[in-house]
């Protein structure tokens, strides 16, 4: 939603608690615990949330979106049926999970996290200082190339190694590691004169880029 207008001012809450309702705690716990089962990956989680209809997405709070994404994945994987969600009780036997997070393994899993850097399969096509132009891509599926910087000219300012490629990983087509770059855009390249930024940076995968 970068650059979209008329959402109003940013309203910061003083001394905001991490959770405003107890159910938000439970959603965080469920999403992180189920994320550790290996039944889907982070990109699939993001894709499940971001592919909600825009009218639903914009009218929902963060944890409401998380819950909807979780429900969608549970049903898609057959872990819970739509009927069970409806009736609010188990009707089918459980499906075997790849693994579960237990009270014993939880701390190790959290502090390990989920690094996404992988061995590169090819040399990097670009280096720091190179002029690049983002491709004009509009896939109907998951991508991490923001709409506001498609088809724009920028400069590579950092290389981060090869990382899991979300566009592929979200579809279950494998990690397909690709080089990840930080690209610097002059703010006027993105917005013309209607900006107060001097530069905007985005972390972009090699398939999003072409030489300028």
């Amino acid at each position, binding site marked *: *939603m*970068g650059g979209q207008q008329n959402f109003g001012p*940013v309203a910061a809450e003083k001394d905001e608690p991490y959770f*405003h309702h107890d159910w938000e705690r439970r959603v965080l716990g469920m999403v992180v615990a189920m994320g550790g089962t290996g039944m889907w990956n982070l990109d699939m989680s993001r894709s499940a949330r971001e592919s909600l209809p825009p009218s639903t997405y914009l009218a929902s709070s963060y944890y*409401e979106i998380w819950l909807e994404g979780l429900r969608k994945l549970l049903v898609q994987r057959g872990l819970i049926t739509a009927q069970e969600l409806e009736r609010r009780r188990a009707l089918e036997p459980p499906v075997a999970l790849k693994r579960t997070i237990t009270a014993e393994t939880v701390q190790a899993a959290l502090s390990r*996290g989920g690094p996404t850097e992988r061995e590169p399969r090819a040399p990097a096509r670009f280096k720091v200082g190179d002029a690049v132009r983002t491709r004009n891509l509009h896939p109907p599926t998951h991508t991490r190339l923001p709409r506001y910087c498609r088809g724009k000219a920028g400069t590579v300012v950092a290389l*981060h190694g090869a990382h899991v490629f979300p566009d592929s990983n979200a579809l279950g087509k494998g990690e397909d590691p690709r080089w990840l770059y930080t690209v610097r855009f002059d703010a006027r390249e993105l917005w013309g004169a209607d900006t107060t930024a001097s530069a905007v940076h985005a972390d972009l995968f090699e398939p999003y880029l072409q030489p300028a």
Partner: protein
Amino acid sequence: MPKNHSHHDHEHGSELSEMDVRVRAVESLLVEKGYVDPKAMDAIIQTYETKIGPRNGAHVVAKAWSDPKYKAWLLEDASAAIGSLGYTGRQGEHMVALENTPKVHNMVVCTLCSCYPWAVLGLPPTWYKSAPYRSRAVIDPRGVLADFGVRLGDDVEIRVWDSTAEVRYLVLPQRPAGTEGMREDELAALVTRDSMIGTGLPRQP
């Protein structure tokens, strides 16, 4: 943007809101089917509610202010420098530190979802995840700063960083004047969460 369920939560403590019911239904199914260990879930919640928070990042910043070698390391390899203080894990696997100077101010956003450096700042505040911030930070960061009551000189360049992949950014704010000789823990108390996102400045001593 959030639907208001507070009516139920606060005025009728014993009644359950629609969201409570919806969430409990999923949770009880997950537990009944053995997919989720309730103790693990409690540990996850407790970790993010009590153990991980902006004081982790404040420790990093105060150390960088106090120790030039650490600062150089942080700017060179933030993941290692931050990891050396024990702050690792989810949403902090690949860190980059951005140094503010008298001429450059950095601001971090995630326009696509709400990516945030959990390992050093904890869970993100609601405004960071909100449409107003995610839409406007990349086009009008000065307008965003004004919403936070911060005004920077026209000669300051504002650089915005959209966290579109798994790199997570920590802003290293400028050390406030008049803090010479302060201890690291005293300095850490001046470092606000917002100053490490780039929507605020550190407290003055």
